[in-house]
Each structure stands twice: as C-alpha cells, then as structure tokens.
C-alpha cells in the first residue's frame, strides 16, 4: 500500500483526537486520523454519552415506579411500569450511532483522511496501521497521541463472566437482580444509582472510607443520602478479595477484618481508568513518562520533537472536555499559532442523583495556600424553581478570595446542576468577582438564581435566605 505523507497525524478518534483533527483540517493542515474501532472513542461509544442515556432512562423508569407506588406528590399515577432494557440499549445505541456518524461527517467535511486500523509507531515520524486491506504506512511531520484510557482491571476480579467493566454495564440487556459495584468513584456511583433505579439491589464496595473522594463531604452528602433512600448499600473501608469459589458472591473484608459475602448476579468493577500507553509502539520511541501517563508540557509536547499527546493518556483529570481543549490547542500550535495551556479551571461533573458540579477550587483547596477566603452557600430549599422540580436537595457554593473577591471556585450539588457548569466555568475563566456575579441578572425562576444568591451571600447580603 502506498505510503501516506501528511503534516499532522492523530492517533485516536476520541473527543481529543477528533477535535484536534477537525480543527487541523479547518486550519488547512493536511491531516490524517487513525481509529481502530469507532470514531468518538470512549466518550461517545462506551462512556459519557451512553451512560447519560442509561441514567436518563433509569430516572424516567424510577419516576414511573414511584407513580405506580402512589408516592408521587404531584398526584400522577401509573400502573405496572416496566422496562425492556434491550430496547433501552437499542435506543442508546441509536444515539451513539448518530453521534459517531456525525464525527465521521465532521472529519470528512474538514478534509481529514480517516484510516481505520490499529496504529503502531515505527519511529518518531512513521506510523504503520494494520488495516483490513493491509498495512498502511503514514509519515507525518507531527503526530498526536490520543489513545485515551481504559477501565482498570483488578487482578482478583478479572473482567469476564459476571465481572464487568463500565463498558459491559452499558450493554446489559437485562437488569441484574443483585449488582455489586467495586469502587465508589463517579463512574461506579453514576451507574450504581441508575441500576438501583432500574430495580437492582445494589451494593457498593469502596476501599476508602468515603464515596467520591475527589469531592468534599458537603458535596457528597446529598448523594450518600440518596443512595440510602434508593436502598443501595455502601460498604466503606472494605477491600474486595475476589469471587467466591462458586462464583455466587463477591468476597470482601471490612475495615475491622470482618469477612463479607455479597451475593451478586453481576459485579461491576469501576476502580478507575488507566491511560492506554501500550499497544501502539511506545517502545519504539523515547517518551518521558509522568507516572503512568505520558509527560507533556504546557503545549502538550512530549519529550520527542513533533510528537504531542492529549487527553486521558496525559493525566488527570481524565475528562473529555479537557482532551477537546488540548486537541484544539495542538492543532493550532501545529498550524503555527502561538498557544499554550492557560485554562484557569476544568469543570468536573458527577451525573449522580443529585448531580455534582465543581469548577475551580473548593473552600479547603482555596485555603490550603494560606489564603483567606469567603464562601457563599445557597440552598435549593430557598429556590422556587427547585421546589417546582421537586428537587430541593442541594446547594450552590461560591468560593472567593477575601481580599479582592475574585471567584476561585464554584460547586453545586442538586438535580440538573450540570447545566449550571457553563455559568460557573465562564465566571472562573473570565476572572469574575463576587460582585460581577451578584450584579448579573439571573433569570427567574431558574436554579441559576442560586448562583447569584450564593455570591451575594458571600458578600453578606443574600436576599432569599
């Protein structure tokens, strides 16, 4: 097969890779992208999007179940709600299918050549791709490694049979009667809550002594409360040992050495994700590492000239929007523009029930530097819109410097607060002060009013609390 020469080669079509390629195409760079499965990467195929689809379906179903049980305060009644999870999955696959098609279309529109197959570096300028029709060699002036991440496997619980990863959980066609989840991070909790709503008896095992260790307890407490209300059991400080000999149950040991036997039809392991640093010929290169990750500088350059890395393979936080921003930046750098990573904040969201959103520093993180901070906290119990949504759990919290009121971080927990992340991110990125937010008119009646109120409260003059 004839060699391809190009200006930019992107390995991986996840959110980082495809955005990088589209932007490069827009900028007129001769760009090739290699994908080994479907475009869209983990995010579109087995991550963000399908999990949100499942969570939405679970919410609707759970609502219907509550109606049937006569527990609906609005007076809505339903009878015998049922869910056909196979159909749910088909609906979800329809969404991901449309999105992956969309990505392919966008890449083509931008003039990007797509090569399907597994890529392997030969040297710092050459990549060989095993395609269905044979080996394709690509020479590129610049190469972007966007190989992403994969679920971490526990040696005691290898994937297979009852033991599934998030990918497996998102393709179940029957709701498991008893679902054991290992790991109380955001993936485990998002899926755990969804399956609890779908009717599974969920037990979550976490080795640490708290859920969602990336967030402070003020934020996670409403989620813990909700888990309990949904009948999910959370075993903290508990280590898994493996499956029982019969494969009937998950074996675990609590903090006080007590043996636990958790009968389970499925065991979902969500103990984190690892960067994909093998399988693409890293051994042919001289790339410095940063722990498990590829080391990059503020322009996403690796230790080798002309080789960039973006997304999950480069470190935490492993979030699609971080990868996209990196991809866009790298395309512009390759096209000759001056860019560097200068973001003030990367928002992070947990699509649990209730949702958690965090942008910038938490109060503790802000204080860690010895800085004096002002914290404003506004509960949704005092927000009219939240009441009409029957979602009064949660709050918005604003963290600002005490001296000049510069907003350092914004967090919220509550139903639907993920959409507030736009305002939060903009405020932090623009360098807003408490006064800027407090003086911005927030539409009524919306949950976003809590944002302005939290800022006013930090300034000492909240109106509705």
């Amino acid at each position, binding site marked *: 097969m004839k060699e391809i020469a190009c200006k930019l080669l992107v390995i991986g079509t996840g959110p980082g890779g495809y955005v990088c390629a589209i932007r490069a195409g827009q900028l007129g760079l001769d760009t090739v992208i290699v994908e080994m499965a479907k475009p869209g990467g983990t995010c579109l195929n087995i991550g963000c999007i399908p999990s949100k689809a499942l969570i939405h379906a679970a919410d609707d179903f759970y609502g219907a179940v509550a109606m049937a049980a006569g527990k609906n305060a609005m007076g809505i009644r339903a009878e015998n709600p049922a869910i056909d999870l196979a159909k749910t999955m088909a609906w979800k696959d329809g969404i991901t299918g449309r999105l992956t098609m969309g990505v392919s279309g966008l890449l083509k529109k931008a003039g990007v050549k797509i090569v399907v197959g597994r890529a392997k570096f030969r040297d710092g300028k050459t990549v060989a791709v095993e395609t269905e029709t044979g080996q394709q060699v690509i020479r590129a002036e610049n190469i972007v490694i966007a190989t992403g991440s994969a679920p971490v496997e526990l040696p005691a619980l290898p994937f297979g049979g009852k033991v599934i990863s998030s990918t497996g959980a998102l393709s179940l066609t029957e709701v498991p009667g008893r679902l054991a989840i290992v790991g109380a991070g955001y993936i485990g909790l998002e899926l755990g809550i969804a399956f609890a709503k779908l009717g599974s008896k969920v037990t979550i095992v976490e080795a640490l002594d708290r859920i969602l260790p990336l967030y402070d307890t003020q934020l996670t407490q409403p989620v813990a409360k909700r888990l309990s209300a949904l009948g999910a059991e959370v075993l903290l400080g508990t280590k898994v040992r493996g499956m029982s000999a019969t494969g009937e149950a998950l074996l675990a040991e609590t903090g006080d050495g007590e043996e636990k036997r958790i009968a389970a039809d499925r065991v979902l392991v969500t103990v984190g994700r690892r960067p994909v640093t093998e399988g693409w010929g890293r051994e042919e290169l001289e790339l410095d590492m940063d722990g498990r990750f590829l080391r990059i500088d503020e322009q996403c350059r690796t230790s080798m000239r002309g080789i960039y890395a973006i997304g999950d393979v480069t470190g935490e936080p492993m979030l699609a929007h971080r990868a996209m921003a990196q991809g866009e930046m790298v395309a512009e750098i390759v096209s000759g523009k001056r860019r560097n990573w200068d973001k003030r904040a990367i928002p992070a969201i947990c699509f649990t029930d209730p949702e958690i959103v965090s942008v910038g520093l938490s109060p503790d993180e802000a204080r860690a530097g010895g800085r004096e901070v002002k914290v404003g906290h506004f509960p949704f119990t005092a927000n009219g819109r939240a009441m009409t949504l029957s979602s009064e759990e949660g709050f918005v919290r604003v963290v600002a410097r005490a001296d000049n*009121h*510069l907003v350092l971080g914004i967090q919220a927990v509550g139903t639907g607060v993920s959409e507030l992340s736009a305002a939060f991110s903009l405020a932090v990125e623009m360098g807003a002060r408490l006064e800027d937010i407090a003086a911005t008119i927030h539409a009524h009646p919306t949950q976003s009013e809590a944002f302005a109120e939290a800022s006013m409260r930090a300034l000492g003059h909240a109106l509705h609390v």
Partner: protein
Amino acid sequence: MGEKIIKLPDVGEGVAQAELVEWHVNIGDLVREDTMLAAVMTDKATVEIPSPVEGEVTWRNGDIGDMIAVGAAILKIKTASDGGEEEVGIEPTVPASQPEPLSVGPEPIAEKPKPAPEITPPKQIATVGPKSGGVGQGAPRAEGEKPLAPPAVRLRAKEAGIDLRQVPGTGPAGRITHEDLDMFLSRETGSAVATGLQLNKSVQEVKIVGLRRRIAEKMALAKSRIPHITYVEEVDMTALEELRARLNGNLKPGKPKLTILPFLMRAMVKAIAEQPGINAHFDDEAGVIHQFGGVHIGVAAQTPSGLVVPVIKHAEARDIFDCAREVARLSEAAKNGTVLREELTGSTITISSLGAMGGIVSTPVINYPEVAIIGVNKLAIRPHWDGTQFVPRKMMNLSSSFDHRVIDGWDAATFVQRLKALLETPALIFVEE
C-alpha cells in the same frame, strides 16, 4: 428644601458666551454664600462665579473647555430654605490678573510654557498602573501571583508574544483588560535599547483651554491675516545708559527709577508723531485704517501667573517719569493680580521686551489689529568700530514687525531708524520741535 439654579451671568458687554475654565466645586460639595463655584473666561478676562446661597451642589453642567452661553444653567444648589426651583442671578467677580492675550514675541509662549492660571492640570492619558480601591477592588497582583485575564486577552497576548506577568492589570481584582494589553503593546514596540536607555512613546494630551486657547487663536489670527515684515537694527545705547545712570543716581523723592522702557516709549511717541500710520489699527474687513492720536503702548511682560500685557495709556501725554511710574505701577499690579480689565485693553502699538532673556533677534507677532510691534533684545557690551579702533559700546537690537499690507519696508525702516537716532542721542527725545 429649595433648589437654586445658578446661571452663567452676563460677564461683559457684548459677550454671548464664555469658556468654562475651572470648576471649584464638585457635586455633593457643601458651599457657603460667596464660595467660588466656577471660573469662566471671555475674550477679555476670567470671571469667577460666586455662590449666592448656602447649600449642597446637586448638579453641574459642562466640562472644562466648553463654551457656555450667557444665561445657561450651570449649577444647581440644594438649599435649606423653602421654595421650589429658583433662578439666581449673580454679580460676577472680575478678578485681577487676567492677562489679555497679546501677540508678543514667541518666546513667552513657545519657550516658557508656564501654564496660565486657568489651565487645568494636564490630563494624562498615557498612564497605566494598577488601580487599587477599597475592599473588593483589590490590591495589585502580588509577587509571583498568576496574572488574571479573560481568555480572549490571554489569547491576544500569546499571539503577540507577550508574557502577561509583565502586564499591569487595571481591571477589578487586577484583571488584565484588552485596554491594558493595548497599552502594553504600544509601549512594547520598540522595547529597551541595549544602552539601557528607554524609548518613551507616551503621548500626553493637554487640553488647550482658557488663556492658552485665547493666545492660540489670536496668534493664529495675526499670523494668518498679517503678512509680517520684521526689521532688525542695532542701537548704541551707551549715551542713553549714561544718562539713565545719572538720572537714577540723583532721583528726587517720589520719582520712579528709570528703565529703558520709558525712554523707548517717549522715542516711539516722537517717531509716531512723524509717522502716524505706525500707531494704528487696520480693520481689514472694513478696509479701513484707524490712526490714533493717542499712543497707547501695550507692554508684554511675564508674571508669575503668566503673560500679561498691561497698556500704558496716552504715552504722548506722559513725561519720562510718568511713563516709568505707569509701567512700574502696572507691572506691580499685574504681579499682584490687581490689574483691571480696562488696563489690559486698548493698546495701539506694543512693545515686546524680555530684558535679559531678550536674545539677539526675535520675530515678534503683531497684536492684531495693530500694525506694529517693537521687540527689545538684550543689551550687551560689544566691540564697535569707531573709524579708527574698536571701542566697547553698550549695544542693543530692536526687532520690530510691521503689517506689510499697510506699511512698506521703507516706512518700517524709516521708523526704526528714527527710533535708533533718538535712542542713540537721547537728548533728542526731550527736545521740543
């Protein structure tokens, strides 16, 4: 509670508008009766506007440099007394020290830019620096702290190759704005030179208001209307200086000390008697020359408050001591700021004299609509060839400009030669012909 509306009073006959040159009060200020509120300037003088009432200033109309029509409301003062809105007429205070802008030699204006009293402090625009305010405004960025800038500013800075840590932020919390970046970029281009000397590309904008604007307008008018002819001649002042020394050495009580000016004035009176066309106003729009019988000599002089041109009226009717007395009185009045408006107007010919600063030659600008101005240069001892040898003589140049439309070169030369003859043989000044 009542409100007084302060209107711009009638500040002079035939004056329809005046330029606002200074606010003495701000909105919110408490004023007493007779507190000066503002100063306006007409062609002739600066007029101070006092408050007729006691109260709080609630409204102010106009910026420095604005032309305000007579009768226009300029201030509102909230008073404690009852009564609704009330308009108040005020007797303007015409103060002193109001220099009549006059065309004289270029030196006082060009080389000694002493701000006239009514010019507000220069408004500096090209200044950057973090503003700090109370709580919330925040202090400037602390050492080592990351610069705060919105993404678009960061992007522009990156593209321009600017390290934002170098850029002072004037926005809230020290945020770097697009304007801050503009300012930095404009300074950056041409950065530091190897010698360590810095280019200074700042531009200061100084609004031309008040007296300075009057002078500017009058100078432009004179130079655009009048084709100047400037004639320079040297004068041997040795004899006059001997006479002056003798007179000053035996001054009777009550007699003023004599400078060169009274002699020059008297010489001018004599020369004008022979050439009345020199002592005139040329009304170029009507096409008429007004030749004056009276010789009213304006004398341009620098005072601490700026350029002042008092007028010695009827020099033809004053003897040398009287001229000296009047010059002394007026210049003293000018320095004290007690000179009257009438004493600053009505000249028919002008002397421009800078004494020790007089230089060798100047090109005085005629005080429109006059037709001549006599410039006095510095007196100095210079070698003079007396036919057989060089002798030290006290020499002084006269640099005089004439309106060439109405005065021919010959006439100009004749006038100056006559002054030279009179000054070199001072007895002739006193001989009645």
